[in-house]
């Protein structure tokens, strides 16, 4: 079990800089999730950690020792690939034993270790099968088993659940977090799915365009997003954004004239353009006077029984608004409605995606 540090790590592919100075600390036993839109460099960062990609500059430190120049195999890490990368011509047992055979471990030791891992992952009955004879979930477990037998310092997962169907994904999510608890191992997990990130992580690292946007616990990111990008990325459905300007005192004015008292962390001159954000699940159909009232024209309603999703637009073809309200509603498309945003749940961002949140 081990800790890991990245110090100003940079990766260039030719003249393109894909990782632009990443600083990160992963503590022993932590489950860290890298999340971000596709092309943000999260997989590249993971491959740099495991040694499959060179590090252009900066330091990779594993257990206090610089590991930049150590071969992938000798870093003591194990990787679970997106495609599982099981050797198709070998049985499950051979797949799991391959790494140990290469390091010259005695046959009976291999047998014990593979047996133990197979038992842990309920693969005992499948040891003689070839990967093609396994279901997606089983292949996934073999790929994880192959990592476990090597007893790595850190487990690395590269979007391991993206090839599974929705139902299996949920159950495998539970299995991986269960495994993390049982092994107490340090794990780094890459995904583009923010639900996976929220449900599994001790710590989420949100990446965009090769840079870290925010690091924090899942609820930190949800409750106090550092900027508009993180606010939009974490949470489903996405947070509603409305352009506003600051008025005199602690008021903000929406484009269509409604004004609303909201304290900001820093004092801003009146007339500053900002983005107001509120999560769909915080909007209500009946509000108090202190809430910001948003008059919308309903464009869609999704009744899910336990809760309902109401879609609408603000006047003058304004921004789209989504409201997630409890229970069942009695609204129809084309009707007008007012949704209320309580002040405690409101966010204010500078209009630039990456700039620090104002509230």
């Amino acid at each position, binding site marked *: 079990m081990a800790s890991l540090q990245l110090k100003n790590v940079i990766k260039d592919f030719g003249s393109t800089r894909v990782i632009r100075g990443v600083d990160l600390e992963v503590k022993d036993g932590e489950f860290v999730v890298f999340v971000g839109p596709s092309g943000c460099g999260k997989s590249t960062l993971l491959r740099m950690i495991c040694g499959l990609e060179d590090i252009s500059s900066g330091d990779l430190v594993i257990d206090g020792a610089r590991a930049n120049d150590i071969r992938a*195999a000798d870093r003591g890490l194990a990787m679970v*690939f997106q495609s599982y990368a099981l*050797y198709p*011509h070998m049985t499950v047992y051979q797949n799991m034993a391959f*790494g140990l055979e*290469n390091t010259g471990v005695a046959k009976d030791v291999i047998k014990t270790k593979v047996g133990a891992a197979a038992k842990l992952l309920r693969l005992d009955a499948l040891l003689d099968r070839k990967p093609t004879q396994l279901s997606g979930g089983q292949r996934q477990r073999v790929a994880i088993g192959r990592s476990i037998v090597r007893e790595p310092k850190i487990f690395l997962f590269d979007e391991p659940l993206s090839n599974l169907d929705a139902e299996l994904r949920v159950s495998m999510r539970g299995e991986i977090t269960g495994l993390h608890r049982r092994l107490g191992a340090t794990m780094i997990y890459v995904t583009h799915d923010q639900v996976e990130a929220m449900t599994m992580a001790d710590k989420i690292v949100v990446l965009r365009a090769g840079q870290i946007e925010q690091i924090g616990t899942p609820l930190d990111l949800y409750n106090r997003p550092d900027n508009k990008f993180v606010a939009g990325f974490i949470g489903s459905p996405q947070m509603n954004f409305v352009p506003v300007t600051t008025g005199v005192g602690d008021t903000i004015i929406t484009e269509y004239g409604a004004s609303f008292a909201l304290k900001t962390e820093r004092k801003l001159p009146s007339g500053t353009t900002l983005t107001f954000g509120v999560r769909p699940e915080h909007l209500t159909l009946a509000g108090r006077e202190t809430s910001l009232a948003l008059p919308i024209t309903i464009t869609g309603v999704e009744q899910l029984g336990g809760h309902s999703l109401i879609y609408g637009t603000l006047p003058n073809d304004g921004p789209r608004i989504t409201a997630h309200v409890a229970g069942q509603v009695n609204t129809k498309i084309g009707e007008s409605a007012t949704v209320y945003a309580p002040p405690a749940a409101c966010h204010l961002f500078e209009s630039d995606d990456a700039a620090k949140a104002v509230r």
Partner: protein
Amino acid sequence: MKALAFLTRTRNGRSFDWTDWLSYAYLAMGLFLMFGPVLWLVLSSFKTEAALNEFPPSLFPYGQKSVSVPGEEKMKPVFRVTLPDGSTKELAELRRIGLTSTLVDPARPDDYVRVNVKDREPVREFKLATENYTDLSGKMSFGTYLWNSVFITVIATILTLLFNSMAAFALSKYKFSGRTAVFLLILGTLMVPPAIVLVPNFLVISEMGMLNSLWGVIWPAIATPTGVFLLRQYMLTIPDELLEAARMDHASEWQIYWRIVMPLAAPALAVLAIFSVMWRWNDFLWPLIVLSKNEKFTLQLALNAFQGDLVTQWNYLLAMTVITLLPITIVFAFLQKYITQGIASAGVK
């Protein structure tokens, strides 16, 4: 029954349409054109020398019937004789002098009949001249030629697979500057006609002292651009993640090649193996140039040598040709599935 149903399938599944007749006629013609000569070769290889020289030729191997006559050492040929009284009888000919033939009934060896040669006709029967095959080993050192051919084919094929797959592995799975250039260079050699490199190749082999050695046939044949191309194209389809996983599993580059890439490239290797066997087995020109001693001849060279300047013993030559064809036919019959796959995937002849 199934085969019959298969062979009489029709377009609409019921009666024969005119398009069915056309299709079957076309297929029958194709079968005749492709298979007719081979069939004739095989049937002719069972004919005696006399039957081969007959005119008009017959398709099946017929020979004159012969019987043993008491009191005579040799078998005697049987004729159908028209006797002076107008009846016909099958009799064995003892001798023929001028236009008079002396015949006898084997059951009554003392009753001679003398007739004009015009009044008798040979009795023919279906007869396989298997001695064409059984005599071969005595006629020449057939075993040596066979061994030479097998040795060249097997060793050259193994080495071809090994060397071509290593080149293909490097060209498909490693990134290095000049990779494309090297690959194009290898492909470019496809455009050089073999006749042009014949003399340079000969000089090299000669300088290395490999004339009249089977290795002189094997070495120049090993590096084939076709093989490298075919294997490289196939290896490109093996996901890089497998190699990375193996690298994480402490596998050396050799182990990755030998234990991961080679087993996964098996279908392409099978195709190349088939090609290589056919090439080496049927190779004629290069062995002819390198091998000049009789005991180093391959089967193909022996076949050529057997065709003398003045006399050719066609019955033996045909039998030998059939034997030479057999290995390739067997390889083809069992592995034709891979051949079609390989041709489809690599687009080579």
